[in-house]
């Protein structure tokens, strides 16, 4: 522990004592209001829009200098009893309106008009450990209106953000609801530590690393899908260092702050009911060859290979390819391969349409919120059910939420946030790996092969399971029970000095079970049933204290300071059981199994942090902010336990300068700049720095004995292991035009990561393959532009357009040795290239004369060797973003959203397998695209001649399968109708809205697979590998929203 830390530590340690010493005198004394002895009077009136004269329900009226506050009802009316003497000053606020301070001298029929602000200048933006008004913001923060995205039928709020926040790239990976999404805030900064942003829900740092351990073919679930989007009030994405440095060692990948709904003091109870139902279906599937086409292609492959075997004088080949496999059953019946009948006699079996379905979606939410003078509450309950577009995968979530705040006295407020979630998933495998794979079975089985054997039993081909057996016998499911909660106390120690202490918990019990009965490949004889049951418990507790002081000093100087400390501990424990050898399919409990291996894992990581921020501004014109966080982590080497993360930002609100006073069209102009350091420690093993041996390497001492315990080296230690550091600089400009009708935000940033955490490969002669080290450097440079335009704003008609575009250039600046990922090494990290780069042999063309694929001979040595593999593109897009139009005409509303992405590459592994040229014969499907193969001299195609010889189909890492993944997606169409007020108010209902939402309605893409966002694996550093996952569905939903 260094001196610098102690400096931060002392105030933090002092805080609790200061609080209690200050708190006591206030406890039983009544609030020191400015009571003057006059009798209580009743004040009443209305709050209305200054232009439309429409009532403004929910506007709050606060008497300045007191804590007395009321909210306007649905007619905009308010009434309260006060001891204040007239005239007094009211502070009136309403979301989307300019706040007003007015002096009131009458008691009744007060009419307060508010002016609507088009710009978000007065929006309150949540920042780390506080809030700010957007006009005072130095940081780069995207705020997403939760109401706009929450109806999209994807399970997690992370996936809902696609195209809504600039600088945030989101891909859905699969059409499986509740699966992990790919989310990068201003690019990827890390190789082996996590690249996911930090998620903070109501001040709780929540776990966003999947707890999944069962094999679903490579994918992993998203813990963010546990959270019910209906409970969310707002989502802020913190992007630049000025915003994220306060989160120190976890801020480098951006921070997503989620604020859930709370009640309002003095607000009547409001009930919100929502019900929606919908349907989901894949928009496009793969085009496969028919049985006869498959047979023709395989015969052609055999015939060509036979010719080539003769040419090469290869005896084995001459024997192997002599007979066409698809020949009459009577033609050389005993020769190998055995005859399978002529091509035209083959049947075609459509497995895809057996697997894909029109899936059902439903969503129900109910909430109650309101408050009395001293208590406010939000109660929410929800149930969401989403079937995947393939059988039998499905997802549902039940949630319960209770947020409560209580004023203890004028100075102290306490409160709790509680969320309980139960998430159920049917997690059938759809991805990589033959056994149990749904799409492997449905898509990758050759179409000519029948679904049953001659004796009527289900047929299993090519190493894949039988599709019917899978659909009917799948029994893999997960139940996640999660509690996220927080209890806090706020105290105003002296005016303007606020203390807050909180204790938070994120607890997740994750229960996975699999049962493969003897009909399935995994459970078939001789295994005789295979079951696993895995219980994972992830627990995080956090204790935090902050002390903040804000003061408007003389002459327009405003000054604020925040200091705080945080202590956090996370533990992860996994107990797993498995069993095989069940008596029969009726027995499913592991207790009935003959073999019952078990296992256990435990990991724990602690974090101690101190942080501070100071800010200063002069008359809303000049802004300065600086912050620092010190983080101590148990994860790092003995020599590097602590890391320090400072940042500084400045802003100049030029619009406030005198020389722009008369420029009326310009409503805002602000320049911002910040620089700072953030860190990253997430995603690496808790014990990565330690040299370890583990058990679990048992072996018998004598023949026939059982295993005796054994030990073996597990990993090499590294006492110098430390934080990954990202230095980020940001410059930005905010422009408001035409009284805020148009607002534009532009940011340029540069991130440079050093000491990147890396499993650095070391030479295998050491006995290890890699060790944890700080070895790499990565840069990200990019731009973000977002524009919000209120095109038309009339009483009956409004039209808003929001648009954003972002581009990020990622580059590995330093990496001691290239590292390959995924089997066949499709992906390679190499100095000078971006992450997620594909490492391939470049097929230049297919020789029209010979049909031979010609590969680029980089080394010019006349043969194609490993040295000729090159990096030929990355899954990172050049730019991406979204555009949304929202229109309202009288009681109708319409939303139209598009998202887009340009320049990313996808490696089409489905096509790689399905365009194998017949080399895999009966072991793989052939896609219809294989029919475009070269057949005769003069054919111009990129699909080479079918043969087992040469490089045509044996050089696997062929650039032919690397495709352009750019797309424009019509991501959402919302159409709503609110019943006229005069009708609903008769039924004492505030609002009734009927709506329709369509999502993923149209893709414009070049990619030949159904979904360019597909990715088969949760393996870090691999993105854009499309294999065996269902595409995102096209959905439609109908819903009703009632407010009482």
């Amino acid at each position, binding site marked *: 522990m260094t001196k610098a830390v102690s400096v931060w530590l002392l105030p933090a340690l002092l805080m609790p004592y200061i609080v209690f010493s200050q708190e006591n005198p206030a406890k039983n004394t009544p609030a020191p209001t400015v009571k003057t002895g006059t009798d209580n009077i009743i004040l009443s009136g209305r709050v209305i829009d200054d232009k439309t004269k429409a009532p403004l329900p929910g506007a709050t009226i606060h008497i300045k200098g007191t804590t007395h506050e009321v909210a306007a009802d649905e007619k905009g009316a308010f009434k309260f009893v006060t001891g204040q003497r007239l005239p007094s000053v009211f502070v009136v606020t309403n979301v989307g309106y300019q706040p007003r301070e007015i002096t009131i001298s009458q008691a009744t029929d007060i009419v307060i008009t508010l002016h609507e602000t088009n710009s978000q200048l007065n929006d309150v933006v949540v920042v780390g450990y506080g809030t700010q008004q957007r006009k005072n913001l130095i940081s780069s923060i995207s705020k997403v209106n939760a109401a706009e995205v929450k109806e999209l039928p994807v399970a997690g709020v992370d996936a809902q953000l696609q195209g809504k926040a600039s600088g945030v790239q989101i891909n859905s990976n699969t059409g499986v609801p509740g699966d992990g999404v790919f989310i990068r805030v201003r690019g990827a900064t890390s190789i082996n530590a996590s690249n996911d942003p930090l998620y903070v829900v109501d001040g709780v740092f929540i776990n966003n690393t999947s707890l999944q351990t069962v094999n679903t073919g490579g994918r992993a679930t998203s813990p963010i899908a546990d959270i019910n989007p209906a409970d969310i009030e707002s989502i802020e994405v913190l992007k630049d260092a000025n915003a994220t440095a306060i989160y120190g060692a976890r801020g480098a990948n951006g921070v997503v702050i989620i604020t859930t709904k709370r009640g309002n003091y003095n607000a009547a109870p409001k009930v919100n009911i929502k019900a929606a139902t919908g349907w989901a279906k894949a928009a496009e599937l793969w085009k496969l060859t028919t049985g006869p086409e498959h047979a023709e292609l395989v015969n052609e492959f055999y015939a060509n290979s036979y010719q080539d075997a003769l040419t090469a004088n290869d005896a084995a080949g001459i024997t192997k390819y002599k007979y066409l496999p698809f020949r009459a059953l009577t033609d050389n019946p005993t020769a190998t391969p055995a005859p399978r009948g002529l091509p035209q006699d083959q049947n075609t079996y459509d497995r895809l349409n057996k697997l894909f379905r029109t899936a059902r979606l439903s969503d129900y939410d109910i909430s109650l919120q309101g408050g009395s003078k001293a208590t406010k509450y939000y109660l929410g309950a929800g149930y969401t059910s989403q079937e995947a577009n393939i059988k039998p995968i499905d997802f549902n979530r039940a949630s319960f939420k209770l947020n409560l705040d209580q004023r203890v006295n004028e100075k102290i407020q306490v409160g709790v946030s509680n969320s309980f979630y139960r998430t159920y998933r049917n997690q059938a495998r759809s991805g990589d790996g033959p056994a149990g794979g749904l799409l492997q079975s449905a898509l990758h089985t050759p179409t000519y092969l029948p679904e049953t054997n001659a004796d009527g039993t289900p047929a299993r081909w090519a190493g894949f399971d039988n599709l019917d057996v899978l659909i009917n016998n799948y029994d893999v499911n997960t139940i996640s029970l999660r509690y996220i909660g927080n209890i806090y106390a706020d105290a105003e120690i002296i005016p303007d000095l606020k203390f807050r202490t909180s204790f938070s918990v994120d607890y997740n019990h994750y229960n996975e079970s699999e049962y493969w009965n003897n009909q399935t490949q995994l459970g078939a004889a001789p295994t005789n049933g295979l079951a696993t049951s895995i219980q994972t418990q992830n627990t995080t507790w956090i204790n935090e204290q902050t002390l903040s002081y804000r003061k408007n000093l003389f002459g327009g100087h405003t000054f604020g300071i925040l200091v705080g400390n945080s202590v956090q501990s996370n533990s992860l424990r996994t107990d797993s059981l498995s069993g095989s050898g069940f008596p029969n399919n009726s027995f499913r409990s592991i207790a009935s199994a003959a073999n019952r291996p078990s296992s256990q894992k435990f990991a724990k990581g602690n974090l101690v942090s101190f942080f501070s921020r100071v800010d200063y501004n002069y008359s809303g014109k000049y802004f300065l902010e600086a912050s620092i966080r010190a983080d101590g982590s148990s994860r790092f080497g003995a020599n590097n336990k602590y890391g320090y993360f400072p940042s500084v930002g400045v802003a100049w609100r030029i619009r406030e300068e005198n020389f722009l006073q008369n420029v009326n069209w310009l409503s805002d102009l602000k320049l911002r700049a910040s620089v700072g350091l953030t860190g990253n420690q997430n995603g690496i093993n808790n014990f990565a720095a330690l040299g370890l041996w583990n058990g679990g390497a*048992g072996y018998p001492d004598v023949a026939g004995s059982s295993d005796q*315990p054994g030990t073996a080296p597990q990993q090499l230690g590294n006492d110098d292991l430390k934080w990954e550091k990202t230095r980020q600089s940001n410059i930005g400009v905010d422009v408001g035009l035409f009284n805020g009708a148009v607002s534009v935000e532009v940011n340029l940033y540069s991130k440079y990561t050093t000491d990147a955490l890396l499993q650095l490969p070391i030479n295998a002669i050491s006995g290890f393959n890699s060790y944890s080290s700080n070895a790499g450097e990565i840069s990200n440079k990019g731009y973000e532009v977002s524009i919000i335009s209120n095109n038309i704003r009339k009483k009956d008609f409004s039209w808003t357009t929001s648009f954003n575009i972002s581009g990020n250039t990622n580059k590995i600046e330093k990496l001691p040795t290239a590292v390959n990922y995924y089997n066949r090494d499709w992906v390679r990290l190499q100095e000078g290239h971006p992450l997620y780069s594909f490492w391939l042999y470049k097929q230049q063309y297919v020789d029209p004369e010979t049909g031979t694929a010609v590969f680029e001979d980089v080394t010019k040595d006349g043969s194609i060797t490993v040295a000729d593999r090159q990096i030929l593109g990355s899954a990172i897009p050049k730019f991406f973003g979204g555009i949304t139009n929202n229109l309202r005409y009288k009681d109708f509303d319409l939303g139209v959203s598009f998202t887009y992405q340009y320049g990313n590459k996808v490696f089409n592994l489905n096509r790689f397998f399905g365009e194998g040229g017949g080399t895999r014969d009966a072991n793989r499907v052939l896609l219809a695209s294989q029919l475009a193969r070269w057949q005769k001299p003069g054919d111009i195609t990129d699909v080479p001649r079918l043969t087992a010889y040469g490089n045509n189909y044996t050089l696997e890492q062929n650039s032919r399968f690397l495709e352009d993944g750019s797309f424009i997606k019509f991501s959402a169409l919302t159409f709503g109708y609110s019943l006229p007020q005069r009708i609903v108010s008769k039924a004492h209902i505030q609002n009734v809205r009927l709506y329709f939402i369509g999502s993923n309605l149209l893709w414009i893409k070049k990619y030949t697979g159904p979904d360019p966002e597909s990715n088969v694996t949760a393996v870090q550093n691999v993105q854009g590998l499309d294999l065996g996952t269902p595409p995102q569905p096209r959905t439609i939903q109908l819903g009703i929203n009632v407010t009482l």
Partner: protein
Amino acid sequence: MNAFKYIVPVLAAVSLVSCKKFLEVEPVDSVSDGQTIVDKTSAETATRGLYRALSADGYYGVTFQSIGYLSGDNVQWTGSQSIIQQFISHNVRADNANIASAWSAIYTTINRANHIIAKVPNVTDPLFTQTLRNQLTGEAYFVRALAYFDLARTWGGVQLALTPTNSASDKTGIQRSSLAETYAQVLSDLTAAEPLLPETTNRVRATKKTVWALRARYHLYQKEYALAEAYATKLLGDAASYQLVKPYSAFFANNVVNTQESIFELSYSSTYTNGHRNQWQPPANNGTRQWAPSDAFLTLVNDASIGGNRSALVAKTSQGLWYGNLYYRSPATDPAYVLRIAEQYLIRAEARANQPGKLTEALADLNAVRSRAGLANSTAATQNDVLLAIENERRIEFAFEPHRWFDLVRTDRAGTVLGVNDKNKWVLPVPANEVLIDGSLEQNFSY
């Protein structure tokens, strides 16, 4: 309030201490590498861990074994990973993932052996007898000898790592040794192991007899025929311990383990399973049938006058797919067969046939193996015929064990038989990534 003056520093001090402790979290399922081989028990557990490395998937579990037979002419590729085809067509590329995993699995084994060789002799523990200490050290020497032998026959001369690795920089700057130096290391380790080990029969661990069996093979590879014959004879003379079990399938069928056929086999259990069956068995039996017996081999093994009862090595599904059936158990507890008595017969046969005047004795050894397979005696008469008969016998006898490729290479026959005329291809490429990571490691010529 004055009390704060005293309370605060005390609290701060307490917090600082607990803060340091709070940041020191130790795992519960691993131990620090500073305290690994410290007494009798930990020496024993480390030695068991060594055998677990030897039996790992990358080594004698699947990958290394498959390199030995896929590169021969008995197996065809029938799965999805076309890197398998590279072995079969003798066009292995340096980025082939299987050579990388075999390479790394073998060196992982060597590192575990190095820990034992370096630490066990120095452990102070009154309960640790000298006999046991010698035995464990001897076992490590034996395993290291086997590992370098396998490296040498697959890749040629390799880098010699002879000390335990304690940090990431321990094994930098080591040049490749020549093939002769690598084999010299094998012999040196075998020589060191022999006096340390007991002369007992333990089919799953190394003993003096296991050392002899490997030495017989070693000397055959070195064409030191008299020595090969002498060491093979030591085992063949021990009829009480080692016998050719009849029929051929008796050494593996019906879930048997540790038969008299075995000199050294690696043990698996439901906890530590053997991945091998998964590659051979067809989907109908819950495997992937990544590879299968080739048509040419099927013809031979199913010919009663050539395969005899060794046709039990192959089987056919109801859909007519042939598959290899040496590894078939569930749970996958098939042993990995490292040294069998049949090999000692054929080693001695070959060693004798290569020495003047011992053709008859050579034929007797060959016929012992043929007779067990239910075949008539060989009719070979000349030295060349006998050697060819032995070669062909080995092809069938060890069809799915790592011999065929290595046999054809060591007898200079890989060109004639397999058509691999480029002798540079008689060793496999060093994994491309290893060459990339380790500046001192040279790639084999022509890769």
